[in-house]
């Protein structure tokens, strides 16, 4: 329920609805976009970045949050680790989200034995939180080439064209695989896959399962994973370091058993790193839509092992993160809502950006409104703008929100906010790590036998990811990484060492760096701030 102090603001949103329908803000020209982004998008705030002093990406611009982790000694005492492997397997998959599970399934299908280790419970990941849908060019008026063009343009041509090409070409096949496993994508009356438009797309390409797309895919894949005795699971066992052979190839990892508070070592012929993104590092103090475990572990682990990174200064701030009530701050309101034609409304009851611009532009515009005094202040001092959901019931039909967005409707009914009658207060929320570990088309990093898939990998989405491409990317590159990793079964992993850490530390010392950090972070430090 909204607090008293917000009531006049709510009434203004209702009162201005009719007149707002008549004035749609014009789409911005390229030049105007650039000006807006440079001034207000968090990626362009120079004080939030610094040049990395160490490693394969020395000299590159990265966030302070990443630099603090990479320019430090790990708080773990490596000298006390016993590197005698407790488990030996063919493929070690780190991460239990969509990319990890897909990699495990495909590696197993090629005859490999797999150990899948994950920090939390299997499936606890950002995958299940993907609400809106997944892109795949299946509509008659669409094509993989068109999908390619849209993705490259959305990413400002910073995406790696080979990876984007691989992704769009695999997409229809991935959909066929998911259907075969038992995923129930929404269909139309002809039995065709239902496809929808989204911002920045030239053809309808979003496949969905209500507004719980990722959850319903993940449920099925988790179930599928149980079929084979060749796949073992280690839940509540995050990786804290990779191991390398004497030639520098990856050959296992040191895991930490959270329940028993002890380390154990896994030896493998190949490793697939799929531990997701870094929203819980809360860049620049932003709220995040990410799950509890998204602390950028892949970046730390792979970087110390010598892997090259790509685009670590580029993040996606999803424009519509919840700002009220307090305990839901950062939670996402799906972009599908914005695609349908909701208005973003400032404290003066005005629209201030064409809502169908790409995520980066809309996020920057909201930040502009809030920083120039046109934001709405909550009782606890947070600032946001209104997302006028009730207008959809007028534009389409009564009951649309409840029918199309049952999860969203319920989520807010629990806190007694009826989204068919009330707008939501929103502000950009840290949503996605656009960059990550640099990979080739097989998913392999610059470190031999170290494969990376999903949000942990970089180079696909350029500087702005289009809606629905993350959910696609995890299955495409999870599959590719799993297959390629299984191809290393004949390879002898060699002795497990932490030579790469020793080398990394000696470089830190030569730079007179002495800071120590929990790296990887594993879990965010939570300071509960309430008034």
């Amino acid at each position, binding site marked *: 329920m909204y607090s008293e102090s917000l009531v006049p603001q709510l009434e203004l949103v209702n009162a201005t609805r009719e007149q707002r329908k008549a004035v749609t803000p014009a789409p911005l020209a390229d030049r105007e976009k650039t000006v807006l982004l440079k001034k207000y998008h968090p990626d362009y705030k120079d004080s939030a970045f610094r040049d990395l002093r160490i490693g394969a990406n020395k000299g590159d611009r990265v966030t302070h949050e990443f630099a603090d982790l990479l320019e430090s000694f790990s708080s773990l005492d490596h000298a006390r680790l016993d590197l005698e492997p407790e488990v030996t397997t063919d493929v070690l998959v780190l991460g239990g989200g969509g990319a990890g599970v897909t990699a495990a399934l495909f590696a197993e299908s090629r005859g490999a034995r797999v150990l899948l280790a994950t920090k939390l419970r299997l499936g606890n990941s950002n995958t299940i939180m993907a609400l809106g849908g997944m892109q795949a060019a*299946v509509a008659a008026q669409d094509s993989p080439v068109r999908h390619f063009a849209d993705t490259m343009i959305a990413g400002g041509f910073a995406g790696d064209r080979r990876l984007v090409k691989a992704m769009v070409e695999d997409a229809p096949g991935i959909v066929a695989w998911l259907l075969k496993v*038992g995923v129930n994508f929404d269909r139309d009356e002809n039995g065709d*896959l239902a496809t929808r438009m989204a911002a920045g797309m030239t053809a309808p390409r979003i496949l969905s399962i209500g507004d719980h797309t990722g959850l319903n895919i993940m*449920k099925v894949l988790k179930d599928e994973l149980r079929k084979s005795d060749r796949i073992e699971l280690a839940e509540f066992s995050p990786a804290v370091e990779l191991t390398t052979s004497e030639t520098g190839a990856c050959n296992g990892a040191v895991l930490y058993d959270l329940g028993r508070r002890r380390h154990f070592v896994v030896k493998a012929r190949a490793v697939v790193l799929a531990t997701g993104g870094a929203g819980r590092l809360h860049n620049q103090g932003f709220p995040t839509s990410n799950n509890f475990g998204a602390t950028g572990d892949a970046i730390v682990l792979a970087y110390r092992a010598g892997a090259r990174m790509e685009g670590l200064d580029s993040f996606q701030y999803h424009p519509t993160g919840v700002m009220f009530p307090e305990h839901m701050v950062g939670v996402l309101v799906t972009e599908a809502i914005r695609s349908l034609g909701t208005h973003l409304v400032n404290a003066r009851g005005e629209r201030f950006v064409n809502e169908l611009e790409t995520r980066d532009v809309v996020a920057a515009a909201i930040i502009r409104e809030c920083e120039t005094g046109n934001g709405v202040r909550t009782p606890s001092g947070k600032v946001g703008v209104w997302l006028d959901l009730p207008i959809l019931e007028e534009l389409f039909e009564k009951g649309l929100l409840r029918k199309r967005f049952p999860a969203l409707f319920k989520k807010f009914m629990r806190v007694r906010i009826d989204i068919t009658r009330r707008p939501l207060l929103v502000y950009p929320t840290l949503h996605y790590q656009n960059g990550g570990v640099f990979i080739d088309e097989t998913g392999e990093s610059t470190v031999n036998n170290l494969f990376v898939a999903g949000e942990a990998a970089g180079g696909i989405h350029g500087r702005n990811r289009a809606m629905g491409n993350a959910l696609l990317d995890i299955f495409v590159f999870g599959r590719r990484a799993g297959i390629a990793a299984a191809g290393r079964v004949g390879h002898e992993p060699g002795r497990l060492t932490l030579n790469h850490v020793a080398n990394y530390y000696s470089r830190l010392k030569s730079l007179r760096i002495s800071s120590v950090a929990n790296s990887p972070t594993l879990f965010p430090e939570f300071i509960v701030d*309430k008034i």
Partner: protein
Amino acid sequence: MITIELEGRKIRVPEGLTVIEALWDTGHDVKRGIGCLSGLCGACTVAYLEAGAQRVKFGLGCQVVVAEGMNVIMLPYFPSRIARYDMADMANPLQELPGQYPELYACDDCKACNICPEWIHVAGFMKNAKEAAYATVAEKVKDCHLCGLCASRCPKSIAPQYVGLYLQRSCARQQPLPPNLRKRLEEMATFADDADFARVPVMSDDELKDFCRGFL
């Protein structure tokens, strides 16, 4: 500040916190049972008794806000039987439901399972399952995140969440390949190489930009 009973002990916490925030705020190092923190994943199930109430309620720890006198524990895991199968080996998994989940037919519609934090009418879909209205079940469990609270209440030890998942998967597998997808896959197999698209890797940056913008 309010006083609550948290994990079996009286403790004072600020007002307005969720159960998970109350645990963190009082220094409890909880990791098992934390997931998305958005009410989506079902990892953080809790059982709680409100002040003066007689009936225990259930919910998600990231969504339930603590109140004066509340008695609350986390219930992050409850053992329930899940059948083992490889659907690829099954011609029609729908027909095999009675073999996979025989306990389903012991359900006497007592409705104790109707405590779903996603407001799914669990007893309703269990009745549909018994009556072989499988497509209805598949539709009704789309919001299920497998938290397992329903199973924790069943006097017959049935796990409705797994029955629902089995039917959701089985129904999806019975559907024919969507015509639009079939057509796309055929097209791609026939014209493997769109001549222009094949040149993407060797195009200059400017050529690539022109190529992509040509679709706008």
